[in-house]
């Protein structure tokens, strides 16, 4: 029931459900905070229906809050638990997922929670009301938001669970049809049951590559090689973080044995340095890399394939938060994530975040943080700080800390080396939207003196197109910094005043009834 207020839990049910939070006393305030008219704000708006958002919404409902969950996709699950539409009749969706049963259990709890699920809502900005401090979440509705039909949802608190997207580092030929994001290949397979080719090389860096390669192989593709730019020795630097995350190690072992079964070799310290073909992929050249990720001359080997799935880790999707002034932190793999306190609150009071927005860490961490954030929101809105000291909250915080430590160790092991730009000739396009080449960016950074991505954008249009620099941002920042003393800098924190392209007509329209769709 999009936009409709949710009913509070019956006191008896709440008592049982609240037990872990040691919050069994009836919630006196619950009635007054549950939206009774369309103009009444929700207690909590959750943005993003992946594991973090689902766990946050379920927990907040359990603790008596009214909740609206907004997400661009038609179904819950986010990117990790993306799954086929019902029309495809998949009897065994778990064949494409680890932990599918845990997801379906979470989804069932969400469906039973009576939180409002606002699917097909593409959130483009969040604003704060000056008079009473409530938030307004602005969205465009529809499968791809093309119609520009607006919706607004008001809430007393916001939980950002917007996840991440894939980081791309360009190389010659990366714009040819048949070159797809590693996460993109995974998403198209999980949702649409299709492959970009029959013989697919998987390349880039990060643990996602192993998962993608084993899914593609299980779905019938030949995977002639998995090409990883880092060495896995990087993990050995953090033995303690590894030893305390057995689930992650088990997952890696499962992928590893699946690849062995499909006879897929893993080439570490290597990268695809060229894609061959005129109008689509015909082959790739794989070169050895030195420790700084510079290709070693004379090591290139050609591998025939009809597709390449490539990605270099994930970038937290945080522009809704940075637009509100939230502080960020540098992650060990060179991205920006939201800086969060011990209870998942951003530096802007009333705005919480969970999951990949705080740094890449996987779905178990996302779910843990979502639950913890919802407890903190309930504690604040209900005036019950004791909630955050409950056994459950302390357990969640401990698990969160352990998984974050592992995530940081993993991120450090896969951080791009400073020498990667040496595989990038001047005629390679870096900005896919505006067709700006590496040479154009180098000229802006050299002769014209640009030292950051923003100045490069003003001079060359790199990052000014449809994707707003999501695909080229990391590369442009590295190229802009290559002449500086540091040699390399992470891209500036994600700043996009509009997170989704918005028709001018929508911007010009005055505020309408909040909660309408």
């Amino acid at each position, binding site marked *: 029931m999009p936009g409709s207020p949710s009913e509070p839990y019956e006191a008896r049910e709440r008592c049982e459900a609240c037990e872990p939070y040691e919050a069994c006393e009836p919630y006196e305030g619950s009635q007054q905070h549950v939206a009774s008219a369309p103009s009444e704000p929700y207690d909590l708006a959750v943005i993003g229906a992946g594991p973090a958002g689902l766990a946050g919404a379920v927990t907040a409902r359990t603790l008596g809050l009214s909740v609206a969950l907004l997400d661009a996709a038609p179904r819950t699950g986010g990117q990790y638990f993306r799954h086929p539409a019902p*029309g*495809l009749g998949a*009897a065994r969706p778990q064949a494409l997922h680890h932990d599918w049963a845990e997801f379906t259990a979470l989804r069932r709890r969400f469906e039973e929670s009576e939180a409002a699920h606002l699917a097909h809502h593409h959130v483009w900005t969040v604003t704060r009301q000056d008079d009473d401090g409530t938030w307004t979440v602005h969205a465009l509705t529809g*499968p791809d938001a093309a119609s520009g039909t607006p919706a607004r949802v008001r809430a007393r608190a916001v939980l950002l669970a917007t996840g991440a997207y894939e980081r791309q580092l360009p190389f010659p030929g990366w714009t040819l049809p048949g070159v797809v994001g590693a996460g993109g290949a995974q998403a198209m397979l999980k949702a649409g049951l299709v492959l970009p080719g029959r013989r697919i090389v998987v390349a880039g860096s990060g643990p996602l590559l192993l998962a993608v390669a084993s899914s593609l192989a*299980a779905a019938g593709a030949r995977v002639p090689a998995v090409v990883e730019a880092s060495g896995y020795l990087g993990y050995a630097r953090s033995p303690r973080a590894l030893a305390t995350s057995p689930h992650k190690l088990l997952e890696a072992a499962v992928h590893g044995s699946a690849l062995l079964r499909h006879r897929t070799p893993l080439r570490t310290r290597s990268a695809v340095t060229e894609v061959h073909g005129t109008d689509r992929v015909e082959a790739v050249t794989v070169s050895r890399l030195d420790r700084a990720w510079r290709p070693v001359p004379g090591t290139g080997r050609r591998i025939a394939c009809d597709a390449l799935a490539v990605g270099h880790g994930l970038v937290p999707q945080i522009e809704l938060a940075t637009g509100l002034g939230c502080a960020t932190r540098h992650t060990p793999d060179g991205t920006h994530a939201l800086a969060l306190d011990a209870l998942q609150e951003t530096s802007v009071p009333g705005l919480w975040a969970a999951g990949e927005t705080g740094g890449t860490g996987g779905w178990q961490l996302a779910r843990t943080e979502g639950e913890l954030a919802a407890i903190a929101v309930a504690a604040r809105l209900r005036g019950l700080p004791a909630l955050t000291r409950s056994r459950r909250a302390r357990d969640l915080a401990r698990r969160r800390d352990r998984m974050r430590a592992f995530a940081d160790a993993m991120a450090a092991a896969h951080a791009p080396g400073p020498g990667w730009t040496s595989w990038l000739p001047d005629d390679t396009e870096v900005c896919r939207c505006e067709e700006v080449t590496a040479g154009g960016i180098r000229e802006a950074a050299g002769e014209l003196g640009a030292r950051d991505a923003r100045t490069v954008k003003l001079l060359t249009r790199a990052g000014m197109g449809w994707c707003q620099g999501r695909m080229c941002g990391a590369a442009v920042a590295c190229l802009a910094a290559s002449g500086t003393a540091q040699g390399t800098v992470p891209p500036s924190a994600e700043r996009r005043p509009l997170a989704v392209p918005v028709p001018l007509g929508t911007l010009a329209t005055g505020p309408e009834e909040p909660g309408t769709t």
Partner: protein
Amino acid sequence: MARDRTPADLVGADPGPPFEITFDGRPVTALPGQSVAAALWGAGILAWRTTRNGGRPRGAFCGIGQCYDCLATVNGEPNRRACLVPARPGDAITTQEGHGHAGLAV
């Protein structure tokens, strides 16, 4: 073992009745629940847009609605993200040239 397998086999898919869409006038079979991009990939089509400046072919890249490389003209309307738009029976998909508004001469 893996070689003859398809994604549909892997998940034991029993889809609803297939239907037809067209791509630049050619018939393409789509399954209920597939996006336009998935239906095109299923037919071996990887490019359905040409770039504004270089006229180079492009198709789905990020697969999750972030990169806008998969923009297509759907039933005459340009700039639709093919990886997000569900395929519907009878949809006419056409290659989007540049910004897709050539008719407006802008």
